[in-house]
């Protein structure tokens, strides 16, 4: 064996990996399914489906309460995912992982528990043009309550954040900056470590929305150096209704509870209740236990493949798909950042995104059409909607070929 083979990750055996995903064998409108809507939600490997199934068949009990065997097994399976997730994003401590229903809840938790008590009239919150509504609307709601304003860092025509402008906008009135790690519309990978350094220098906390990053690349919250990192389980091959907030221990320690209920208390008295330490302080009520067990299986599954290998394959696939789409006359791609994930938003002259998506669906091809929960980004590009093909490691060149051929037929029909 030579040294080179040991260094370079072995390429993915995509055909074999596809067999791990039962849904990918489905036919839609009597055609083999081509699933290009991964930024919306990813498909689930058998390992995840079986973990959820096994939990309900063999272990189901509530967590952190029951002293019986099932209760202890359920708690340890649920808490094991916290360890896995902490390791997966290189968090310094498992206590820094707060389970949520997804990124939206995680951002709202930061908004109401961390930021709201600190917000004064005239304060500002910095976001970017390419944010998902989940990273805009919670801040607007806070702004309305506290008399604070939203400031927006601009992007270029190619869909890259204007980093200098972002940094210039980190003024003393900014009480929190929030930025997406990987854009769900453009695929742009933002230089979050650089943004975090600039924010830290000015004493401004930075929240990074990592929903679209986790399924595609290694994420190291220590290396990024941000203060908050949010993620969504169902986009990273786990069950829906799972997600997490990562924040440093000292930040979480000072945050008051957001939801009240069981699970998050130390002692309840009518003359004063005391609260559990983080992360349980923020996990009121019975959580999505089976879902988090499934998320643990998803993390194991991704680690089994290796994220570097996923990055390498998706980079190849993105280049292949981009070149193929660029050869389609009248097709415009939105988001051509140098550093981008395998997400391609596009429009074809004379073809409405919804018509395209409906006609592709009849060819068995699932793409998203619409505003992708990013109205301000659509306004920036001056279009009401785009079509979006978002790929995952289980997609193939052959699928891209069939996709591009189908687009050609749609053009002929409608163009």
């Amino acid at each position, binding site marked *: 064996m030579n040294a080179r083979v040991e260094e370079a990750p072995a390429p993915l055996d995509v055909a074999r990996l596809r067999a791990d995903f039962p849904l990918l064998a489905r036919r839609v*409108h009597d055609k083999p399914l081509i699933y290009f809507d991964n930024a919306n939600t990813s498909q689930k490997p058998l390992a995840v489906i079986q973990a959820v199934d096994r939990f309900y068949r063999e272990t189901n009990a509530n967590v952190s309460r029951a002293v019986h065997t099932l209760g202890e097994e359920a708690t340890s399976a649920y808490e094991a995912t916290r360890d896995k997730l902490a390791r997966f994003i290189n968090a310094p401590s498992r206590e820094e992982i707060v389970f949520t229903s997804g990124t939206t809840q995680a951002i709202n938790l930061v908004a109401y528990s961390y930021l709201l008590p600190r917000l004064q009239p005239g304060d500002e919150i910095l976001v970017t043009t390419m944010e998902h509504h989940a990273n805009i609307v919670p801040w607007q709601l806070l702004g309305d309550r506290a008399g604070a304003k939203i400031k927006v860092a601009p992007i270029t025509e190619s869909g890259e954040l204007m980093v200098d402008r972002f940094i210039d906008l980190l003024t003393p009135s900014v009480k929190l900056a929030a930025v997406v790690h990987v854009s769900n519309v453009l695929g742009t990978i933002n230089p979050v470590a650089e943004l975090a350094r600039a924010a830290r220098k000015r004493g401004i906390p930075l929240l990074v929305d990592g929903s679209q990053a986790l399924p595609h690349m290694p994420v190291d919250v220590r290396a990024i150096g941000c203060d908050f990192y949010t993620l969504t389980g169902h986009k990273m091959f786990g069950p829906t209704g799972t997600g997490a907030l990562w924040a440093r221990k000292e930040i979480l320690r000072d945050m008051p509870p957001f939801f009240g209920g069981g699970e998050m208390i130390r002692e309840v008295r009518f003359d004063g209740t005391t609260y559990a330490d983080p992360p349980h302080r923020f996990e009121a009520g019975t959580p999505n236990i089976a879902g988090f067990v499934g998320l643990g299986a998803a993390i194991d599954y991704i680690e089994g493949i290796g994220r570097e290998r996923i990055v390498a394959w998706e980079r190849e696939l993105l280049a292949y798909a981009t070149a193929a789409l660029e050869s389609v006359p009248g097709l415009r791609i939105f988001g051509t950042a140098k550093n981008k994930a395998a997400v391609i938003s596009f429009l074809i002259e004379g073809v*409405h*995104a*919804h*018509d395209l998506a*409906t*006609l592709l*669906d*009849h*060819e068995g091809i699932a793409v998203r*059409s*619409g*505003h992708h929960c990013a109205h301000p980004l*659509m306004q920036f590009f001056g*279009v*009401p*909607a785009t079509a979006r093909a978002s790929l995952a490691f289980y997609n193939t060149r052959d699928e891209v070929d069939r996709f591009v051929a*189908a687009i050609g*037929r*749609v053009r*002929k*029909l*409608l163009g």
Partner: protein
Amino acid sequence: MTTPGLYTQAVLDHYRAPRNFGALAAHTHAADGVNPLCGDTLRMELRCEDGCVVEMRFSGEACAIAKATASMLSELAVDRSAGELAALEQVFISLVGGQIFSHDQLGGLNAMRELANHPVRQKCALLPFATLRAALAGVTSATTEGSK
């Protein structure tokens, strides 16, 4: 390409060569409609006499389904009163909702029955009707998402 039943030859024809597309200088009624789900916009301008539509024209940026519906509607609306068109809209809603299979008065719009299988696209076809209804009621704007 095997086209879904939705994109019939008639629908494609009305999309490619929409009837009554453009502005109507001498209009008595007009409204701008929007489908906030996709950002599509449609403007309708009408000339009414004695309570009936005499002429209708439409313009705007919209998908094939919305445009074809508007085009077909621009022909169906002529000689009908606001009340008759409101009744026609109800029939059309039943069609796209899958409650009825066809209705004589809908003519080419019967092709939209396929929308029963495309719930997300139903609003596309309802936008022209909502805009027409607003124009006839003297309301200058319409939306497919509740009242505006």
